[in-house]
């Protein structure tokens, strides 16, 4: 089965092409094509995963490009990590395809939407099964394209336009890092293939500095995609896209690609402690940074977006602290519960036609299905025991602690507290309390939307149990099995950590309850609107403003500067030359006064000059 894994990405591609050609005619029924093909890939990836449990890593490839005597290969690989990713991606994608049928109903460019979804899914699956960096980069960019197109789906909205542009460019910045790192690695190791690189790195063919440098460059790429600080600003804006897109791309799959990249390059990172530290630090900081912003946002999707950023930070922290399993584990659980949250949020928006949580409330009774599912998601992300998020988050804290970096551990803990707090703030504001009058005829979403949510809800609960301190760390063992470069990142896990995690999350929930549901504590606990702290958080630490003022402005200035060079120096020189020629011509024709005797005189002077020159050059001294 695994030797046919290459077919998995093709299904969505086919649907993409089909929809491009027939989209106009098919109208809404194009949804079925998309759903069908993603279902196929889901089935195949499940089969592949099944095989992978039994049989070893499968890898194949063929020559793609020949440069002199260098051969660059293209192919695919199925190891534990990307077998798992295949399932996650195709599953979420499939569910989102289903969900969108209901959500996007009545949209004019319905088929285009599904075409884009297909393109993205293709790229994402391709990215996952790439056996070498170059191929990964290729799909890496295509994924970016898919995200770009889908964010800008409502092309007539100015915000959507800006968001799409921003997303593409910000990630592009990261990509260049990856690009450079990849090329440097190539010249160091003579190959783009993962195993070759790991081998070289492991055998110490690379200098310490080079490993660090390349690792960091690659990590920059990951930062761009996974919205790590300081390249995080595009991700919240990306919420301008349709909600299913946010669920698929900006929660479950693409943004996780950064984490996936670091995970799959883990052997390289693990060779350089510096790189590891940077990854961990960036992750931890992003986690708490984004969480703090999430505390005060009022747009339901933006809150989720910041929580995504923060959760991705968690994963980076895990990887940075050698918690390979923890990172991947959280990646999986997060994919499920965050997708769930987004879809639920989508169904809320679908119901009340607003994204501002201040205008919502009391929806618990109205949305009988969405409400509980949202709650599940919230519990899972807050790390409440027995929910998937609890186990994966615990793994991360453990690995942070075991790695001995207690400051990062502390940050993670605080971030966990924040997460619990703002997620339940969100929950209470939306579902608890009395209905606002804006939300008039509220109704539950159609089955095509609720069923995917149900599936994800289930997964959000159970997916945690594949790797628990109690029922065995199956996932961890499987992931690390037979992988020479990975030692099982699961040392002893002190029980008090689990307790601490539980306590902080519960504390967060209770606090949120008291403030937003019970109202025993004033909502202006932060000093209310307009207070400085609130403004800073509400304006996301003014990151965008800062970038606009610094980088964007600088580029513009440089451009103007160059344009002056162009206009005045370059063109100036040219006009100088032509000008002199013209001047000479003028002078010459001026001399032509029509006075015949003057002509004679000039001629005579010509003769005289010749003779004088001749005299001076020695003729006379004969």
């Amino acid at each position, binding site marked *: 089965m695994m030797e046919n894994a290459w077919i998995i990405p093709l299904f969505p591609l086919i649907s993409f092409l089909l929809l491009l050609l027939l989209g106009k005619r098919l109208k809404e029924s194009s949804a079925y094509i998309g759903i069908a093909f993603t279902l196929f890939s889901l089935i195949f990836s499940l089969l592949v995963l099944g095989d992978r449990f039994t049989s070893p890593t499968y890898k194949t490839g063929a020559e793609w490009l020949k440069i002199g005597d260098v051969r660059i290969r293209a192919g695919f690989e199925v190891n534990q990590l990307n077998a798992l990713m295949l399932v996650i991606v195709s599953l979420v994608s499939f569910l989102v395809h289903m969900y969108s049928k209901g959500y996007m109903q009545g949209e004019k460019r319905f088929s285009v939407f599904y075409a884009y979804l297909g393109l993205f899914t293709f790229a994402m699956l391709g990215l996952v099964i790439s056996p070498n960096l170059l191929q990964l980069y290729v799909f890496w960019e295509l994924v970016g394209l898919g995200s770009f197109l889908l964010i800008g789906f409502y092309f007539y909205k100015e915000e959507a336009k800006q968001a*799409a542009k921003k997303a593409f460019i910000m990630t592009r910045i990261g990509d260049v890092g990856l690009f450079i790192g990849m090329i440097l690695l190539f010249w160091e190791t003579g190959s783009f293939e993962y195993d070759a690189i790991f081998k070289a790195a492991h055998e110490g063919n690379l200098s310490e500095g080079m490993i660090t440098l390349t690792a960091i460059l690659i990590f920059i790429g990951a930062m761009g995609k996974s919205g790590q600080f300081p390249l995080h600003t595009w991700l919240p804006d990306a919420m301008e896209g349709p909600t299913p897109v946010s669920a698929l791309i900006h929660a479950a799959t693409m943004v996780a690609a950064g984490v996936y990249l670091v995970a799959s390059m883990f052997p390289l990172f693990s060779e350089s402690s510096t790189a590891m530290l940077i990854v961990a630090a960036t992750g931890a900081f992003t986690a708490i940074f984004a969480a703090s912003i999430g505390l005060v946002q009022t747009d339901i999707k933006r809150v989720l977006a910041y929580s995504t950023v923060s959760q991705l930070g968690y994963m980076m922290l895990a990887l940075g602290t050698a918690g390979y399993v923890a990172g991947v584990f959280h990646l999986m659980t997060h994919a499920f519960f965050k997708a769930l949250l987004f879809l639920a949020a989508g169904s809320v928006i679908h119901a009340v036609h607003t994204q501002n949580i201040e205008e919502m409330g009391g929806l618990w009774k109205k949305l009988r299905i969405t409400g509980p599912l949202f709650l599940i998601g919230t519990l899972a992300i807050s790390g409440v025991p027995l929910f998937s998020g609890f186990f994966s988050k615990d793994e991360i804290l453990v690995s942070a602690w075991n790695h001995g970096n207690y400051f990062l551990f502390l940050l993670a803990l605080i971030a966990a507290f924040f997460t619990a707090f703002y997620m339940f703030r969100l929950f209470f504001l939306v579902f608890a309390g009395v209905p606002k009058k804006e939300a008039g005829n509220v109704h539950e979403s159609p089955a095509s939307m609720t069923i995917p949510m149900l599936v994800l809800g289930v997964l959000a609960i159970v997916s945690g149990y594949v790797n628990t301190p109690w029922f065995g760390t199956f996932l961890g063992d499987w992931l690390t099995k037979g992988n020479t470069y990975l030692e099982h990142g699961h040392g002893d896990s002190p029980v008090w950590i689990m307790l601490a995690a539980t306590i902080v999350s519960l504390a967060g929930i209770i606090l949120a309850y008291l403030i937003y549901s019970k109202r025993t504590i004033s909502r202006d606990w932060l000093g209310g609107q307009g207070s400085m702290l609130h403004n800073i958080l509400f304006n996301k630490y003014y990151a965008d403003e800062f970038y606009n003022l610094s980088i964007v402005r600088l580029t513009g200035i440089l451009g103007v500067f160059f344009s002056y060079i162009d206009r005045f120096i370059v063109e100036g020189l040219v006009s100088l030359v032509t000008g002199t020629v013209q001047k000479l011509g003028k002078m010459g024709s001026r001399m032509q006064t029509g006075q015949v005797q003057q002509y004679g005189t000039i001629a005579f002077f010509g003769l005289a000059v010749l003779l004088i020159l001749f005299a001076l050059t020695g003729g006379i001294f004969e």
Partner: protein
Amino acid sequence: MNDLLLSILVFSPLLGILVLCMISRSNERAVKWAGILATVPALALSLFLYSSYLGGSDLSAFSIKLDWIRFGNLADVDSKLFAVDYELALDGFALLMVLLTAVLSTLAAIASVSISKEWKGYFMLFLLLETGMLGVFMAQNMVLFFIFFEITLIPAFFLIGKWGYFEKEKAAYSFLIYNGFGSAVLLIVIMVLFARAGTSNIEALSYIINVGGVSLVAPISEGMKYGLLIALLIAFGVKLPIFPLHTWMLRVHVQAPPPIVMLHAGVLLKIGAFGLIRFGLGIFPEQFKDLSVIIAVLGVINLLYGAFLAFIQNEFKMVLAYSSISHMGIVLIGLGALNESGIQGAIFQVVSHGLIAALLFFLVGVIHERVQTTALPNLGGLSHNMPLTSGFLLAGAMASLGLPGMSGFISEFMAFLGLFKTDPLLAGIGALGIIITAVYLLRAVMGMTFGRQGASVRTRLVSDLNALEMVPVLVLLAFIVTIGVYPTILSNPLEDTIQLIMTGIRGQAG
């Protein structure tokens, strides 16, 4: 027959001119169709050559060599001394360029149906231009090369000056003078080599310069070699164009009629790159090696300079013009790297930018025809009325900013791959260009297609691409994607050429 093939290929457009002479100038349909069809034979032949080459047949079977001019009365001394033969031949590289030229010519001819006046004269000049372009890539000696090179100059001058936009004559003049200057410098180089070596055959010259041991009419000193190479750099730097010799081509890009800009950006600029590789690398590899750093630096300057300027333009054509400068920087970067991947990247970039630029300028022409402007402030929200056009425009932009899966990426990748080996720091600086390219292209293209409808779009109802206009777009896009997905179709024909160049470089290295 075989040895006549190339001649037929080169001069088939001239037959078209003859046909056109017989059609009355008033008969618009006939003239335009004749003009389009006249480009087809060349296309067919070049496709045939390409396929037979991929089929493994030897290109040298097609080369032709006839006595043509013999200066001086030296038949008794040496019948080949100061002789200029009529010799055409192809290698992989030249074949690709010929194919590119033939394809773009046909597409540009199709695009030319939008020409509104004096079609007859237009197509005659157009075909003459095509002959010149085809010949340039096949000429086997420098004099013949120069002749074809100049033949492109004259029709282009008229095409720009008569059928262009508002400031057409100014544009035509700066085109003429700059290129005249360039070819003047080139002529000096050619004549020095010819007069002193007694031959202008490229192979012979590269042998004489590199291996030596041949008695020359007059010596060619080491210093002179560097001088000649630098002169070549200037001559082709005007065409390419290399900063600061670029200002002329901005005017041309903005003022010339779109089909001509397709050819201009697609082929004429590439002649500069072709010449640099053929003569610069082919005849003076050793000297080129010593100058390679300078060339790479020039490349990076081009790349960034063009990108930053494109970022602040408010006229889409200007954006594209500067982006051409920026992209030619990548060619120089590849050449400056001076290793397989670099040179291969440069050649790839030549081809791929040819296709991409043609695509973008064709779409510009379409839009301008509909909306009567391409000034960014007046545009926006084109996707409302012209979804297809906008989509293709976006695709073109993506190709141009090096999106993987399209030809632009391959060349960019290889060029940088090359330079990172020889000069990582410089390459690192150059890599910034990748970002800025994305910035300015998205700014411009999204400014036109996304967002609210701009003033000039709202006022009139604009139609989308029609069937005939789809042809060039789809063909070009097909090429771009094919190369991007399966680059081997380009790299295979190039192997021999690049091997030859590399041996030239290594031969001196050892």
